[in-house]
């Protein structure tokens, strides 16, 4: 069973590096930080907000 992330939490979280807002990708279960170019994974509904565990985004993914 896929666990849902708390919806209010998604509005509160910011990128821990740039402190800017994040985009939520429901299908991929990722939180995207355009400013830092990092995609933070969500595992079992728990956002993993560690830069070391984040995926580096492709240039094409980044929305200016």
């Amino acid at each position, binding site marked *: 069973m896929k666990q849902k992330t708390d919806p209010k*939490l998604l509005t509160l979280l910011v990128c821990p*590096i740039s402190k800017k807002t994040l985009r939520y990708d429901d299908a991929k279960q990722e939180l995207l930080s355009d400013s830092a170019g*990092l995609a933070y994974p969500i595992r079992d509904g728990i956002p993993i907000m560690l830069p070391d565990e984040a995926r580096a985004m492709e240039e094409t993914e980044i929305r200016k």
Partner: protein
Amino acid sequence: MGAGALHAARFRAITAGMIVFDKNRRRLLMDKAASRFDRADFLRPLIERSIVERLCDIRRDFPDVLCIGARISADFIRDLATLKNTRRLYVLDSSEAFLAQCAAQAPAPDQCAIIPVLGDEECLPFGETEAQFDLILGAATLHSVNDVPGTLIQVKRALKPDGLFMAAMAGGQTLYELRHSLMEAETALFGGASPRVMPFADMQQVAGLMQRAGFALPVVDHDVIPVEYRNFSSLLHDIRAMGEGLCLADFNRGYRPKAFFDAAQAAYAAAFTNDAGLLRASFEIIYALGWAPHESQQKPLRRGSAQTSLTEVL
């Protein structure tokens, strides 16, 4: 190098200013300790009771709470929910095992929702966009942070105006007996000493840091908890079981023979045995409290703004 890798490298460079603690090693120690933590940590109920007592002195509810550190008990969560009307408890920790354990012990969901977030206390994923929390708790985590001033500033920014920050952390008198014995043994055997017990802040330093971070009306106090151990190895066992094994970045991992352990044990027994033949060990817990600034709070008047001359009064 992609943008992401660049940023991750920058992040490491920023935090590399003064690396005292090896965060990855700390995460590992914590994950290892999670399963047996409940039995070892006799300090936790004491600390939690002190935090709840201090919160109850404040006549206010705290509906939205962020707890930095997932090593909290079900009793503590229930106290927050019933005494302080906490409805949403966000829990941040860098150890997945402790986070899972904390989320599993949630009370009835209608009472208080527990919302876990995996993250690093030194780079909080909260703040700046909008003020968010009525209360932020530092539950025995801030003593292993590299950049304490930076962390406190981030905490302050994540608080609502007039929001409260309260932290409990280990202070400088913690395990001074062990520090002393290990140093004595290492000097005698190897002709030099290396750090083997974490460096802890003392009360004055914590008070200074709270002020520097810009908290209003800061208060810092402490408890020293004396503990007695039957032998040296049970003390070491407890420290590891708490997940507080050494996680210094610059730690001498060279081979240390059994002779070193024996010498430390002898030095400890010689200096710190009490009348009952037990080994003394001290734990100092520092409690720090401060508010996010708000215009309703009392402030000193500006210098030179007095209406009456002091000479008229005296």
